[in-house]
């Protein structure tokens, strides 16, 4: 498939796991760990999908998502959001900000893969 996915995540072990799973599913995986520069990186690399953590150093995932949705070039970009805080309030905030899919850590690998595939289909 050769699709391009960008992981914005500061937990290196989680990046490692995601990279393993997604590359085996045929994705070209890139990772970025800093929140502050994430939006620029997304604009620069133009991925087909972004997997976004909420608790990021420098800037929160919600803020990054808001900025992406405001920009016309990234407004429709599929974003899968992952959070470790697991509160209902976070889901609401994410949906308000225009998230494509919201998942709570820890997740099962199959769920993540299915979610990514769904997003790409459509």
């Amino acid at each position, binding site marked *: 498939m050769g699709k391009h996915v960008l992981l914005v995540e500061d*937990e*290196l*072990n989680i990046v*490692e796991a*995601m990279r393993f799973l997604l590359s085996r599913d045929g994705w070209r995986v890139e990772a970025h760990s800093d929140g502050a520069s994430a939006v620029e990186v997304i604009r620069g690399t133009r991925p087909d999908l972004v997997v976004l953590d909420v608790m990021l150093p420098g800037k929160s995932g919600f803020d990054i998502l808001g900025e992406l949705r405001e920009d016309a070039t990234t407004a429709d970009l599929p974003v899968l959001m992952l959070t*470790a*805080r697991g509160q209902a309030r976070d889901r609401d905030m994410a949906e308000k900000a225009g998230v494509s899919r919201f998942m709570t850590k820890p*997740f*099962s690998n199959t769920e993540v893969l299915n979610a990514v595939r769904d997003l790409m289909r459509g």
Partner: protein
Amino acid sequence: MASLNTLIAVCLIYVAFLFGVAFAAERAGIRGRAGWLLRSPLVYTLSLSIYCTAWTFYGAVGYAARSGLEYVTIYLGPSLVMIGWWWVLRRLVRIGRSHKVTSIADLISSRYGKSNTLAIVVTLMAVIGVTPYIALQLQSVTLSLSIFASAEGAATRIDSASSALWVAAGLALFTVLFGTRNLNANERHHGVVIAVAVEAVVKLVALLAVGIFVVWGVAGGLPQTLARIDASPIGTWQMQGSRWAALTVLSAAAFLCLPRMFQVMVVENDDERHLQIASWAFPLYLMLMSLFVVPIAVVGLDLLPPGSNPDLFVLSLPLSQGRDGLATLSFLGGFSSATSMVIVATLALSTMVSNHVVMPIWLTLRTGGATQSGDVRDVVIFARRVSILVIIALGYVYYRASGGSGALAAIGLISFAGVAQFLPVTLGGIFWRGATRMGALVGLGTGFGLWVYTMLLPGFGAGAILPAGVIDAGPWGISWLRPQALFGVEGLDPTVHAVLWSLALNSLSFVVVSLVTFPRPLERLQGAQFVNIFDHSGQARGWNASVAESEDLMIMAQRILGAAEAQSLFQSEARRQGLSGHLPEPTPKFVQGLERELAGSVGAATAHAMIGQIVGGTSVSVQDLMAVADESAQMLEYSSQLEAKSRELSQTAAQLREANEKLTELSLQKDAFLSQISHELRTPMTSIRAFSEILRDTEGLHPEEKTKYASIIHVETIRLTRLLDDLLDLSVLENGQVTLNRQSGALSDVLDHAITTAQASTDGRIAIRRSRGNEAVMLQTDLDRLSQVFINLITNAQKYCAADAPALTIDVARDGGAVVVDFIDNGSGIPAQARQVMFEKFSRLGLQDNKGAGLGLAICREIMHRLGGDVVYRTGTGGTAFRVILPQAQSLAAQ
């Protein structure tokens, strides 16, 4: 036979003697000597004897000769009033003293809201009411002179009208000289009072002498006298019950209300205790005065030719027996009675006239003019002199108009009934707070009008002023308006009729109008003051100007400052002045200080006015101001209570708001904490789950891949464990459940242990510089916990120091009594905004390394607080610097 000229000479000498006595008394009074005499209860009692006028001296015998024992009612009433001093007189005297009352008019006007209208009405009524009484004195003196003249023979028969004029002029002169030589602020006349007391002795001695002469000299002893009495025309009890009761009541009322009685009884009273002595002494005086009246009357009726005037038996009996000396003494007694009455009565009346009629008019006419005190004094004295002349002139006119022939007692009763009209408003005023000014005006007007119509006018005789037809058939023939049979009540004695109707309707209208009208504020204030006089003024005490002033100041200060504060203020001043008591002298300095003190409570103007009222002259009485102060103090207290309540409420509200904010904050903190915990737990679990699923589900993994993923799982598990350990540790520390294991040890050992531990457990290496020389400090604390703090700080430096050649300097120093241990690395330091939160839970300093849960510094701080010290971030060192502070108690200087 004493010649008329001798008699006049004796009179003049007597008058000169009295004048000398009065003058000496006033001189002594000014110099402060002989005060015990001037202010003795004896003088007070004797001065009350001006109740016994020429009416008593001459008239009582005539009265007895005409109507038997009826005369005695005139003395029974006052005796009852005196014996019952506790009921009315005590109040009157206290009110008079504490309100500086100058006359009965002043009392009534003061009670009813300082109404000048009322004062004028009372003054006019008093002048009219007393006029017949003065005429009576003129008549008696003239009669007594005429009897001497007639005894001398027809050649020297004198004209009664002109002699009465001379007597009147003499009395007027005498009164002006006595009473208005100077002006006393409190309307007291010590000279007059002492002269009156002397005259009281003279008249008593004279009457007793005549009586003794009659009983033992003429009748031949007591049993013979009694037998003679029973055999006389007045030998049986033939009293009309209604007159007996009515006259007793009337005399009691008049005794209270006569302006001159009020003057000597209340105004001239120096000490309330004198009243108690007079309560038995004065009835005794009255009894002695009345004792020989009946014997003299009976013997006179017996011995003297029919048709001789019984009013003069006291004189004519000794004369007929050839006792010229006794007759002269008797004449002097009568003269004393008449003069003392006229002097005091006109003085009292002139005070009323000048204070309540002349002065208000004069002041109104001089609107806006700068009134100097000297001016006013002259005007007052002039007004009094004129009033005296006018009042005596009125008496003379009445004497001429009534023909100078009526029985003395009948004239006296008219006067009594006139002034008795003051009784309802006076008693109502001092016992009933509901009495109002309108009620008093209407009551007085009603009573006085009825008195004029039923008693004064008919008293001139049918046809003199009221036509005979009016008296017999009523005005315009309306029979129920007949002056001596009002509303068709016939058959009553005219005096009883007049007293009954005037007093009854007076009281009734007074009460009814008082009930339906509403008093003005000043009336209510004064009413409360008068009725509750014994609540307002303390224990009766002897008069002493300066101490009394201090006391007044004290009472006032207490009402404003509160008892305790005022007392301590006065006591400290008294101590400063070296006085033993609790009242200091009212020195100007102290008074000024007190004024300032009071000004703090009631404002400067009010304080000044109040102090001025006590220390300076008074026009409004101190008690008024005190009552106002009382009320405003109550209001102040009430409003301050309200303020306190509302302050309390708003405090409670603020506390509630604060508590609510705290709860909200706590709830937010709890949410944030849970959220953090969740994040910190879920993050390693995410890795663990992901890699364990990979290991489980992925086939054909390289062995090294398997090892790598398994070791990731292992590390994350350790991370989880450490997190849980930290959480438990923090929880224990925060809840204070931790038990400190205090030991003593060297700081250098603790640091050695910490450095070793930190460097063993981590991969990062950092160069550590120590200054071992300073580390020689002995500690007495939980060394393990302290070591934990040190380890944490060193580990942090190892983890987060971003320098190329990371180095940590550990420096020990003394700061005051405390030992401080600084951990300074050569890194980039911590941004200012992060410094504020870095000691909070889950705040991460390092951005790159996520291994810590952000609990380390929170735990460090919690431990140091438990140990009684602290850990803080130091600025200005170039790198990241933490300072651990150990309190002195835990650091022992190493030997």
